[in-house]
């Protein structure tokens, strides 16, 4: 089947939904394709808040927000983009309120705001109340509100349609081709469909599932990112992956930064508040990359709890009232998933793979770019966690991801509407689905004696966690690279037992594993090449930041023999790089 549209949005998280909403308002004939029901998107798990310099409770300015973002990202942030982010954060949050988002309120009825790691007043002076929130379910409310508005504006949703390929007209992107649509598999019957459109947005979210311990959903396998990569579009800054300090041991479920914001402390086996040694001023509220590193050092020095690979998050001293009223979700998670009672026991935690700073390179209009000169791929857009604008640089600040979704989701929608108004719809592409069909059939029909996807996935997650985690060095990364190559070879021999077409989740998972392998490969290569430590990328063999050599973005191109790396300049407008101390 072939469906002609004017615009297609792939992914119905915060970024995709806002783009779809803009398109619908502009009257552009749009389809949203999502492999999950929209309300299942991972945006719904965000708890903490969304930052905007509203100044509802104390003085605040978007310039301060921009500065914090740039500094938090260890100066790898593109400052033109950070400026857009900080400025438009304000109007998008207000617009969300107009759409009905139930923000918590101040006593005089305005949007309530709270403090969050790394957000300061007057360029780093003191913490500032900048995070707007709806209890501890800000992301949930953003997702719901945007979905509601899409329903109101009659957006067409194709629920449980997994996009498996991108279509281009006039050659592949590197030959100047333009986006022409996507191929999607309807999960309910396994059929492949082509969706033709002038403008295609990728908003498929992150890919934390390449790590063993992650806060990310099972469905976050980087589909959009990998598909771009396979079509010759480079991936930017993949070596920067954020580890959140407080994940539940073994499973990685996130205990929000709010726990430390409210005064929770981190303890080692000796009962010491070890952050004293690493960040004497900010202690537990230092940026995430720093806290995660400190935790790893403690564990390595044998001061993990019982000598094992975790530490304690202690909130007992906060008292029942604070714990139950302000940290209900955290309390709930600790009780359910660890069987720990936070009122009377410390909670075992360990860093958990959380957020991809890197992704599909785009400009501030969310147009995908394909080289170091930022040449635009006509008709192809990306926004949200899968994109790299780059507003997060080498390390994202808490709450800035949601802002990213709102600001650049909205910009994507507007730019797509503009673009779609000025071009012809691509012509039907003969045999558009054949390439993917062949790939899927090959997996489906291979005798069932081949490799198992589950086993390869476990191996991949282990390598990435153990060798490409919080700390890296040349040796570990070289070993990881070899291992990823080996896993790719095994993936070519994968076979499955389910030969059906209805909800063949085994087939889908096998394909998703392929995406993860591609992404892992680019990540490891970028990390191996970058011989410095910056933000979330910490090389033990190169512990210093090296602005002379490395103040530049990595672009990883897929090659037959692994990625080729090129580099792109960082845009610096207002703030010259300075040492990053807190």
């Amino acid at each position: 089947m072939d469906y002609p549209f004017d615009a297609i949005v792939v992914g119905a998280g915060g970024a995709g939904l806002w783009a779809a909403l803009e398109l619908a308002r502009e009257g552009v004939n749009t389809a949203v394709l999502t492999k999950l029901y929209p309300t299942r998107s991972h945006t719904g798990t965000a708890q903490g808040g969304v930052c905007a310099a509203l100044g509802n409770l104390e003085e605040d300015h978007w310039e301060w927000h921009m500065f914090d973002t740039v500094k938090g990202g260890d100066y790898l942030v593109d400052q033109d983009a950070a400026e857009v982010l900080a400025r438009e954060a304000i109007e998008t949050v207000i617009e969300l309120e107009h759409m009905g988002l139930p923000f918590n309120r101040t006593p005089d009825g305005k949007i309530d705001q709270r403090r969050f790691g790394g957000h300061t007043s007057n360029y780093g002076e003191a913490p500032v109340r900048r995070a707007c929130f709806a209890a501890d379910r800000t992301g949930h409310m953003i997702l719901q509100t945007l979905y509601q508005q899409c329903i109101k504006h009659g957006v067409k949703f194709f629920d449980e349609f997994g996009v498996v390929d991108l279509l281009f007209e006039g050659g592949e992107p590197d030959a100047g081709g333009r986006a022409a649509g996507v191929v999607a598999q309807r999960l309910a019957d396994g059929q492949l469909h082509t969706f033709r459109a002038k403008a295609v947005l990728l908003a498929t979210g992150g890919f934390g599932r390449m790590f063993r311990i992650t806060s990310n959903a099972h469905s976050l396998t980087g589909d959009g990112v990998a598909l771009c990569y396979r079509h010759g579009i480079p991936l930017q800054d993949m070596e920067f992956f954020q580890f959140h300090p407080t994940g539940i041991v073994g499973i990685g479920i996130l205990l929000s930064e709010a726990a430390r914001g409210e005064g929770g402390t981190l303890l080692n086996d000796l009962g010491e508040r070890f952050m004293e040694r690493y960040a004497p001023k900010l202690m537990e509220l230092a940026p995430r990359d720093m806290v995660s590193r400190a935790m790893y050092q403690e564990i390595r020095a044998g001061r993990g709890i019982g000598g094992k690979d975790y530490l304690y998050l202690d909130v007992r001293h906060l008292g029942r009232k604070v714990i139950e009223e302000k940290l209900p979700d955290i309390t709930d998670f600790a009780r359910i998933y660890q069987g720990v009672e936070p009122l009377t026991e410390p909670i075992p935690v360990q860093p958990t793979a959380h957020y991809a700073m890197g992704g599909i390179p785009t400009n501030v209009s969310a147009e995908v770019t394909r080289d170091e000169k930022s040449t635009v791929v006509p008709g192809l857009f990306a926004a949200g966690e899968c994109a790299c604008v780059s507003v997060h640089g080498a390390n994202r600040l808490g709450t800035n991801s949601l802002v990213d979704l709102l600001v650049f989701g909205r910009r994507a929608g507007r730019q797509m509407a503009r673009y779609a108004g000025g071009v012809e719809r691509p012509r039907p592409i003969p045999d558009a689905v054949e390439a993917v069909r062949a790939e899927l059939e090959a997996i489906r029909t291979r005798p069932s004696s081949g490799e198992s996807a589950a086993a390869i996935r476990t191996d991949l997650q282990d390598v990435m966690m153990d060798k490409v985690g919080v700390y890296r060095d040349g040796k570990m990364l070289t070993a990881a690279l070899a291992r990823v190559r080996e896993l790719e070879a095994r993936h070519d021999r994968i076979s499955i037992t389910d030969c059906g077409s209805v909800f063949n989740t085994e087939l889908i998972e096998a394909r998703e594993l392929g995406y993860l392998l591609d992404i892992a490969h680019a990540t490891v290569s970028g990390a191996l090449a970058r011989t410095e430590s910056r933000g979330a990328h910490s090389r033990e063999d190169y512990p210093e930041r090296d602005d002379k050599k490395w103040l530049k973005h990595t672009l990883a191109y897929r090659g037959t023999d692994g990625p080729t790396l090129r580099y792109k300049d960082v845009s610096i407008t207002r703030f010259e790089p300075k040492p990053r101390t807190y």
Partner: protein
Amino acid sequence: MNVDLRILRYDPERDKAPHWETYAVAADPMDRVLDLLIKVKAENDGSLSFRRSCGHGICGSDAMLINSRNRLACRIRVDQLGKKISVAPLPGLPVVKDLIVEMSGFFGKYRSVKPYLINDQPEPERERLQTQKDRARYDDTTKCILCAACTSACPSFWARPEYVGPAAIVQAHRFIFDSRDEGAAERLEILADENGVWRCRTIFNCVDACPRGINITRAILEVSSAIVGRRG
């Protein structure tokens, strides 16, 4: 420990009717049912199909009938259930495959109650103001993750699948009692129907099933009271 995991399997391309399969699974007491399902899929039978995403009770993908009650597979531990665990798809909804049920009807009903803010006044420059009290009025019903555990646990829904169901009423409640919304009358009109709030028989299965701890029945009765108040 070893757990006997009984799963109601159904493959529309092979089976005439659903049938039980039992798997002996080695499990940790802290494992969640979702972990066991993933394990069975990896080790015993790759064709076992179920929905999941977030893995920690917030996306609403994996509501199913576990030991005769609706719950999220990712929120219920083995030690809470014992050594015999049975898992079946959500009752009252058409089964597509294994533990996957058809959800489009459920979402259709959700859409039918106009689940979005209705306010045609010109928007102010800044945010609209809302008192903390007004905000608290509808807080409970903003928690809903549309997992369908409630609707599919409701005997009134089993009897009449046309019933709009607790989840949709919860979503309507969230707006009807929002001081910024002006669409209450339209929504009450929609819900004042044989298949609307009047079909609720205060059975409370919905409340027991809700993973978000929403007092659904209260929300439903507040909506019916609003209808009574408006007409009476």
